[in-house]
């Protein structure tokens, strides 16, 4: 098992956001996490990568067999976790080019990185701008994905890579991810599931109010959500803890 989350309880401030999450993702698998706004999906991402503001009060996170629950972010990254954030901060004064160079270490992968940037349509102009400052929605996503892929992590967490993105950008992102995910493992959070057009995920989960209430086939779950909204999930018993 690549990632194993057991009975995870997470607090921000003194508010309990995650109330006993269990999740297992195997090597080479792509999992989808659905859930309405505010259900705690991004909080789960923050807890996995180790944001200091998200306190694990119970449960464990095991990655590659190592308990990382108490480990600092740097170590989790070193072990091979890369994140595409939903709302990355603006960083004044640091150019995208500089950041990507740092991330990729400019090694012999230099050529690969250039190709990657090209495929994601990250232009010279964008590279010269300060990270996320004045970027459009699509630009933010493409740059987040470029950074995460430049890290070459084994396990990718993508927090809504398809929201706020127009058709052309979605196409770019979808194509790139479908190729990358052939060889890697991932947890993808998506609100409306647009990205699923390009991917063949292993399994989907639905989070409601800080708990995962069901698992199942991604297309099937998406269809249900499309038809009935998340009310369907709440009354759903069939797939529960399948």
């Amino acid at each position, binding site marked *: 098992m690549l990632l194993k989350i057991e009975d995870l309880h997470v607090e921000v401030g003194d508010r309990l956001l995650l109330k006993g999450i269990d999740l297992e993702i195997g090597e080479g698998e792509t999992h989808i996490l659905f859930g309405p706004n505010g259900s705690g999906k991004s909080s789960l991402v923050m807890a996995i990568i180790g944001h200091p503001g998200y306190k694990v009060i119970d449960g464990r996170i095991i990655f590659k067999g190592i308990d990382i629950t108490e480990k600092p972010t740097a170590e989790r*990254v070193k072990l091979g976790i890369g994140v595409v954030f939903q709302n990355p901060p603006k*960083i*004044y*004064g640091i150019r995208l080019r500089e950041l990507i160079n*740092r991330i990729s270490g400019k090694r012999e992968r230099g050529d690969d990185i250039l190709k990657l940037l090209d495929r994601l349509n990250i232009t010279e102009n964008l590279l010269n701008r300060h990270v996320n400052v004045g970027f459009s929605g699509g630009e933010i996503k493409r740059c987040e994905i470029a950074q995460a892929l430049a*890290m070459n992590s084994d396990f990718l967490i993508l927090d809504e890579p398809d929201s706020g993105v127009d058709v052309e950008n979605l196409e770019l992102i979808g194509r790139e991810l479908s190729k990358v995910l052939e060889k890697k493992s991932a947890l993808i959070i998506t609100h409306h599931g647009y990205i699923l057009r390009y991917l063949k995920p292993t399994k989907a989960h639905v989070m409601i109010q800080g708990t995962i209430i069901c698992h199942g086939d991604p297309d099937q779950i998406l269809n249900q959500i499309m038809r009935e909204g998340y009310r369907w999930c709440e009354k759903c018993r069939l797939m529960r803890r399948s």
Partner: protein
Amino acid sequence: MQVDEEKLRKALSKPAAYGPDLDLSQYSMEAVEQPKVDEEIIERSFEVGVDLRKRGALTTFLQIDHGALYKSVQKQFEGDVELLTIEEAVRKYDWVKELMWKLRSPYEDKYTAFNALHGAGGYFLRILEDRKIHMPIQACFLMFSPGAIQSVHNIIVAEPGSEAQILTGCTSHPKVSRGLHVGITEIYVRSGARLNYTMIHKWNPGFDVRPRTGILVEDAATIIHNYIAIGYVRSFQSQPTARLVGGNSKITMNNVVYLQGSSEMDLGGEVLIEGKGDKAEIITNAVAAERAKIINRGKISCEGEGGKGHISCRGLMLSDSAEISAIPCLVSRRMDSELTHEAAIGRIAEDQLFYLMARGIPREEAESLIVRGFLDLSPMNLPEHLEQGIRRIIDMALQGF
């Protein structure tokens, strides 16, 4: 301008409006013998952006203590640029005296008065009408004699339609621990001229510094006035002052400061908008480390029709023993003026730090990236090689951080 000696002598005891008061009798005008331009001096000048190795190729002025040691105009621009010592210029042209003390009053405080009475050295730089000088002009003032007061007067005239980039680096020799640098600089930006003027400072911790800069910007002229200080200073106080007298003229004052140790700096910038449609901007990014104390004053007054002004003061605190004050001030005497300011002081933002760490960048490196990013040079519009040079200086200063 004619100066009144009696009045000057009285002004010799007048403290400056801001900054700690200094006792001028503690410094001397005596100088030891001037050194040769050796590796140490070349290295030090390089740290304030002046490349003395290229002195044969670029328009260059070098003054050590009280007298010019080197001065040359780039071959390609002979006849476009005139570079003289201030003493030579006063002898050569009657009108140079008229330009002196017109943009700063010699009676302002003890430092200007001392300069008017006892000053020695400085350059006169004239860019002739419509000439575009696309290679940097560099000037270096280096203090070599211990306990000395270096008191120079510079005059810059960018004649109508001319363009130039001027870099002035001021510094102390690494071996000297104490001294006072007073620099009077009067800059005339004539109609339609475009000037990029950059001043870079690097001092030993025992140095006191009191620059006095006056700028006149005429019709449709533009000046970018940059100030960069990295490292230490015992005390620094300056309030460069500009008047926009024509219409559609523009000034941007950019200040980038990183201070450590027990350095104390009172840095201002004052612009008076008199013309129609003039624009003024004062942008300061200041970082205070260790016990450094930085006061940042910006002031824009508007009397011109439809004038626009903006002040941005941003401070980054790297220690609980440091102190930063931001005092932006706006004065409007026109209903149609548009004056704004923003001021913010804080520590390194946790969300930015976390973001970089989540990208696999170690904490120390992420911190230094953010600090370097804060000391953003891009609004300064510097020539590429100079911007890279200054980045190197900043990197060196941040290595210990």
